[in-house]
């Protein structure tokens, strides 16, 4: 079989030209493998040869995104490679973005497979994971050998039109792609096996990972409730009868703020639930089951809490996108702060 032609993209640092003081150099090319290209060439073995290396300073790339990308793609095109590697960039942010941009441009504009490598915290991962195969790497170049081995293996498969395995097998960052395949075992059997492993505390691989919503640092506690103003927020779809704001029964695009001043308990005639994700029978019988106004009023009267806010805030949680829910709360939290609310009780059905 004919040897595959490979072009490799690296930065000033890995080319041995210099560090930050050389980060401003414009794209240039070298014959053969340079720097990490040596290890990469070894990993590629007899099947492929690095015929050229393109070097560009990270700052130059960052400051001249469009023209740098164009110039680099032009150099790569000239060599008519079968496969392109960029990086690995490890946790170097600017380098990661450059590696991602070059690899994406090569795939889109030249139709040549490209593979790169980055650490999960590199901003290039989130920017390009959907477009590219990005091999997972450690923080620093200490893990070079392992990284280039995975990059070479995946690159060869792609250049030879072989089937690429799932992320955990090939070692790339999850791209969010779904690939159909025939499973040996039916779904019910796989589910039972998974749950048995989970119960036993053994490692198991979910077939449907939940998105990572990120975390927020917990706020310090409320020290004196007798002086605190507390507000109720709910995703249980409780609205005044007639649903004046026309909040959707599912996949809500809005929320409402509803007055409860002067009320000691949620009146079943004046309020209702429009939530489409649970049996509303019980909420309609007694809305305090979702918005615990009766108890909050007692606590206020007894002086256990300083004050209950004059309103509650409500939306429908079912099917509502994370983006919408986030936007609602960013918006109404300003009002809560303006109104001097010190703590929130959020109820979900």
């Amino acid at each position, binding site marked *: 079989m004919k040897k595959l032609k490979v072009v490799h993209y690296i930065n000033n640092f890995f080319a041995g030209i210099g560090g930050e003081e050389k980060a401003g150099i414009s794209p240039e090319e070298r014959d053969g493998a340079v720097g990490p290209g040596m290890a990469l060439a070894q990993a590629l073995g007899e099947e492929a040869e690095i015929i050229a290396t393109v070097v560009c300073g990270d700052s130059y790339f960052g400051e001249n995104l469009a023209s740098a990308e164009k110039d680099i793609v032009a150099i790569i095109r000239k060599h008519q490679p079968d496969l392109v590697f960029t990086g690995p960039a490890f946790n170097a942010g600017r380098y990661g973005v450059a590696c991602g941009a070059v690899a994406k441009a090569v795939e889109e504009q030249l139709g040549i497979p490209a593979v790169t490598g980055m650490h999960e915290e590199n901003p290039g991962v989130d920017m390009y994971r959907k477009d590219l195969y990005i091999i997972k790497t450690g923080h620093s170049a200490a893990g070079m050998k392992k990284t280039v081995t995975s990059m070479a293996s995946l690159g060869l498969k792609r250049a030879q039109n072989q089937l690429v395995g799932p992320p955990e097998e090939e070692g790339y960052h999850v791209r969010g792609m779904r690939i159909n395949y025939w499973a040996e075992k039916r779904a019910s059997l796989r589910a039972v096996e998974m749950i048995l492993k989970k119960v036993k505390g053994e490692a198991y691989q979910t077939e449907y990972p939940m998105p990572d919503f990120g975390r927020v640092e917990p706020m310090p506690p409320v020290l004196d409730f007798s002086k605190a103003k507390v507000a109720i927020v709910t995703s249980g779809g409780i609205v005044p009868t007639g649903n004046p704001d026309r909040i959707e029964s599912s996949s809500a695009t809005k929320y409402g703020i509803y007055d409860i001043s002067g009320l000691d308990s949620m009146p079943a005639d004046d309020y209702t639930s429009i939530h489409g994700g649970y049996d509303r029978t019980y909420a309609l019988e*007694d809305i*305090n089951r979702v918005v615990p106004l009766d*108890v909050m009023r007692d606590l206020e009267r007894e002086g256990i809490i300083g004050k209950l806010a004059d309103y509650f805030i409500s939306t429908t949680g079912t099917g509502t996108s994370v983006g919408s829910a986030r936007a609602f709360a960013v918006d109404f939290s300003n009002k809560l702060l303006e109104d001097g609310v010190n703590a929130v009780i959020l109820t979900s059905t």
Partner: protein
Amino acid sequence: MVKEIERAGIPVVHIATVVPIALTVGANRIVPAIGIPYPLGDPSLGDEGEKNIRRDLVERALKALGTPIKGQTVFDDAYEF
């Protein structure tokens, strides 16, 4: 919503029946509720009994808000304040 309320600087407690969802969306203070269609009630208990457990839950939520925590914490029956 819990996360954005907390990010805005207001401590928040999530009273939720499906605790794994509360954990996934990132609530820091979680009080397990009673049932999906009646998080703060129980139709089988009668008016007074039901209001008592609602009060217990809300008081547990206030105690959760009054407790310093380092990370996500589920204030269930087993939690010792």
